[in-house]
């Protein structure tokens, strides 16, 4: 028996992939999210928790470039230097969002093309990336269906013939196939049965680790956060009230609201 040898040299610090600088979103007088700043590094999985109305989905929409913040900046390392995603010309931003980012919607219908076959839903993303060889695209689509545990003989079926859990797995394949550097997920297991959730969660955990992608996951489920995330931000009334290592925030919460949130969980 020998001991594990550390090999990371911290002298070389990689740069953050995404920088949120004082991001705020107001709806008239009403606060969506307020003054949220953080950095996300490559391969890191960040969870955002809080009850409904806490601003977590609003923040995610700003970070993902779906909504424009009222104040603040979202910088993404696209090439050598971080760029403000809202300063980019629309076509550039769209292209970047398609190739370097992925968004997993809570409702798979928002992320899938329901009238296109399962294979087409996955293959389309490879064509966006520039792949043109039909046989290769079909092989890659088959490989990805296997990875998300969808039987290859369903490749020509349309998503509307799939169960909710299968649709969600197909959406995940569609998002991950171009190997994005950053994935946004809004309640990825939201509408699913508990047994289907468990299957999906483990799949996500392994895929995110094996591909080394960074992810931001919004969830109200603390067990999901514990399983999938490295770091956690707790939001209340649009503000981040506590953040840190996930197990630290959940096991030794300091803020009154986090203590309330963690003590309110029923353990099965």
């Amino acid at each position, binding site marked *: *028996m*020998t*001991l*594990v*040898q*550390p*090999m*990371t*040299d*911290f002298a070389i610090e990689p740069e953050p992939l995404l920088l949120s600088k004082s991001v705020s979103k107001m709806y008239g007088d009403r606060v969506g999210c307020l003054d949220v700043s953080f950095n996300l*590094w490559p391969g*890191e999985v960040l969870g955002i928790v809080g009850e409904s109305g806490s601003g977590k989905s609003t923040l995610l929409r700003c970070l993902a470039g779906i909504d424009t913040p009222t104040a603040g900046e979202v910088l993404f390392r696209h090439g050598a230097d971080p760029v403000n995603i809202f300063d980019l010309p629309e076509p550039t931003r769209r292209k970047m969002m398609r190739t370097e980012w992925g968004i997993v919607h809570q409702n798979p219908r928002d992320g899938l093309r329901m009238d296109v076959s399962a294979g087409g839903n996955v293959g389309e993303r490879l064509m966006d990336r520039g792949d043109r060889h039909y046989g290769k695209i079909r092989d890659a689509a088959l490989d990805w269906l296997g990875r998300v545990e969808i039987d290859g003989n369903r490749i020509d079926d349309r998503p509307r013939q799939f169960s909710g859990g299968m649709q969600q797995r197909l959406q995940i394949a569609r998002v991950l196939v171009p190997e994005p550097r950053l994935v946004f997920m809004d309640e990825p297991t939201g509408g699913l049965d508990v047994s289907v959730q*468990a*299957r999906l*969660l*483990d799949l996500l*955990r392994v895929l995110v*680790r094996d591909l080394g992608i960074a992810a931001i996951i919004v969830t109200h489920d603390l067990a999901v956060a514990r*399983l999938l995330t*490295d*770091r956690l931000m707790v939001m209340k009334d649009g503000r981040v009230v506590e953040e*840190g*290592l*996930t*197990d*630290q925030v959940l*096991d*030794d919460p*300091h*803020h*009154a609201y986090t*203590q*309330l949130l963690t*003590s309110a969980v029923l353990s099965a």
Partner: protein
Amino acid sequence: MTTMLRAEGLSKQFLLHTQNSVSLPVFAQVDFTVKKGEAVILHGASGVGKSTLLRILYGNYRPSAGHVHVLHGSQFVDIVTATPRRVLEVRRRTLSFVSQFLRVIPRVSTIDIVKDPMLARGIDPSEATRRAGDMLARLNLPERLWTLAPSTFSGGEQQRVNIARSFVDPTAIMLLDEPTASLDAANRDVVVHLIDEARNNGAAIIGIFHDEAVRDRIATRRLDLTAYRAAA
């Protein structure tokens, strides 16, 4: 011998906002160092803060004051002030926490649970499978269980899966919270041997053991927390 871990002025009090903001002081100004090849057993009556201290060393709890310097490769990292991703890197390669409870991930098989930390360290999957099997066999878990998820296992079986996962590829610092608690004599012996093996290979061990016999076999030194009790 090389210092592996240095605790400096550690204090902890819990402030419970949801329970009339009651403040629970645990301990104050705890200082100690642990060197390579030492096994330090935390001592003191129930409630003195042994588990709390162990969790602080792992970065799971945040101390109210103080620092935990851990030798990671060639440099010390302060677990208290390090960024989350640095703490995770230190945990991945240097610092392990072994409790008697397995956190079961739904649907993940026993062998995959044991392989998981090795894969995260970049060990070849076939080697990881072989080593995981050897370790499960050593802990008397029958091969027919390896492909099953341990959700339905007995407490003792889950505990051995957890120990296999941690000792299949031991790190330089091992934090042990009662890992032998409800094991039978034969399996307890195996675990004591695993701990000794890790220590003989240079691991620094910090642990809590209620069983007096186990404690005597493992300990090279005791640290009594009673003296650090914080005034209520």
